[in-house]
């Protein structure tokens, strides 16, 4: 387990103290308590069960779970297949997810079939929650709602004939502004939770410590929203001046919420074009960490060129200025 982003619940004999189809309707109090705590922390919750859909729906209505589970798989498919569908649909890496199931056979079976995923009993989950104190950011609290908004986006996208027209209809707005103290926890979250679009050259603790250094340091954050909802602070960059002309990118993380075409590029360009950032060129190191090749490709798309014989990449300000951005993204700049 890297960081707990998603809990996939089993239903019968785990959440339910018994089996729904046999008429048992009592909720396991330990499960109810854990579900409530996960919700407060913004951990995504999904559910996989072999119950009949109408039986499950009756439970959803009875217990008020409409907004609790961001994804449910209710059919007779093998559990491993259902878990893979949930992970794929939510874009969560198995290393960041756990199945909670009271049946030890199911737990062992799933960890053997879905590489990287954890499988816990409710007691394991309770122990994790008790040992892991967290500060919940606004984005963290809204995370389950954001995934539900993302599903609405995906449904509308599938229903449209023209993807670009759909993107233009979304009214996507990215606001770029300087970092403030109130952003510290969210920036920590971005640097910790983001794996694919994270430069990750510095250990997170050191990257955090460097954010508040005096002198020629620029930390810029990006917020994003569209017609479907507010995605909050999705991107951060920390630039350090090296002489008067060159900006070294010390940290860069962009949330996977920018997956629609052109959004991550627009966000990166927006961060680098912040009015207080006036460098003739930008330089960064890139070290592959097993997950962050998408960031390497984003840097390439933005025009960063590899420097022979080093692990460094370079972008000139001229290229940045000339970079044409998608017309379906509205960039603006503001203060904290």
């Amino acid at each position, binding site marked *: 387990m890297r960081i707990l982003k998603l809990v996939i619940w089993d239903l019968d004999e785990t959440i339910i103290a018994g089996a729904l189809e046999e008429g048992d309707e009592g909720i396991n109090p330990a499960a109810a308590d854990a579900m409530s705590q996960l919700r407060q922390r913004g951990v995504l919750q999904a559910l996989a069960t072999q119950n009949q859909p109408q039986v499950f729906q009756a439970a959803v209505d009875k217990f008020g779970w409409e907004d609790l589970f961001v994804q449910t798989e209710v059919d007779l498919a093998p559990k491993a297949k259902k878990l893979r569908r949930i992970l794929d649909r939510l874009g969560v890496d198995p290393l960041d997810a756990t199945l909670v199931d009271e049946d030890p056979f199911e737990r062992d079976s799933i960890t053997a079939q879905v590489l990287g995923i954890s499988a816990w009993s409710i007691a394991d989950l309770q122990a994790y929650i008790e040992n892991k104190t967290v500060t919940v950011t606004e984005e963290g609290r809204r995370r389950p709602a954001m995934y539900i908004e993302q599903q609405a986006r995906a449904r509308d996208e599938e229903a449209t004939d023209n993807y670009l027209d759909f993107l233009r209809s979304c009214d996507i707005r990215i606001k770029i502004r300087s970092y403030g103290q109130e952003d510290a926890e969210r920036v920590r979250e971005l640097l910790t939770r983001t794996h694919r679009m994270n430069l990750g050259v510095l250990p997170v603790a050191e990257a955090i410590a460097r954010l508040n250094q005096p002198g020629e340091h620029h930390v810029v954050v990006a917020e994003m929203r569209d017609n479907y909802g507010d995605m909050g602070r999705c991107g951060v960059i920390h630039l350090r001046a090296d002489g008067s002309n060159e900006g070294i990118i010390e940290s860069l993380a962009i949330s996977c919420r920018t997956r*629609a075409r*052109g959004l991550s590029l627009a966000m990166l360009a927006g961060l680098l074009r912040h009015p207080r950032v006036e460098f003739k060129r930008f330089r960064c190191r890139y070290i592959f960490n097993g997950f962050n*090749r998408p960031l390497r*490709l984003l840097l*390439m*798309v933005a*025009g960063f*060129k*590899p420097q022979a014989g080093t692990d460094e990449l370079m972008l000139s300000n001229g290229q940045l200025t000339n970079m044409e951005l998608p017309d379906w993204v509205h960039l603006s700049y503001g203060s904290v």
Partner: protein
Amino acid sequence: MAQFEQGRVIDQVTKLNGKHASSKGELIETVIHLIAMTLGNNGGKIKPETPLFSSHGVFDSVGLLEFVLRLEDTFSISIPDEDLDPDVFQSPQTIVTYLNSRLQQDA
């Protein structure tokens, strides 16, 4: 090499190598085909000089990642990070130039 069904490319050839796509014409056809597979269309609008990632280019970074993986798989090569250069991936034509040099090196 490929047939089209309901706008989707059904690939019948999963592995190519220098022997199967040795001429420049075959290489460009294969590269455009792989781009089309990544995009889920028939590649009809993609020309050898089509920019792959201008603002209205065909790829974002996620699509590009999938395309790079397809290139590596199809030609049985590994593309190192230092070769992820905007000049190399500018268009199908520049990719073919790169592939030619790689396939000659590996021959």
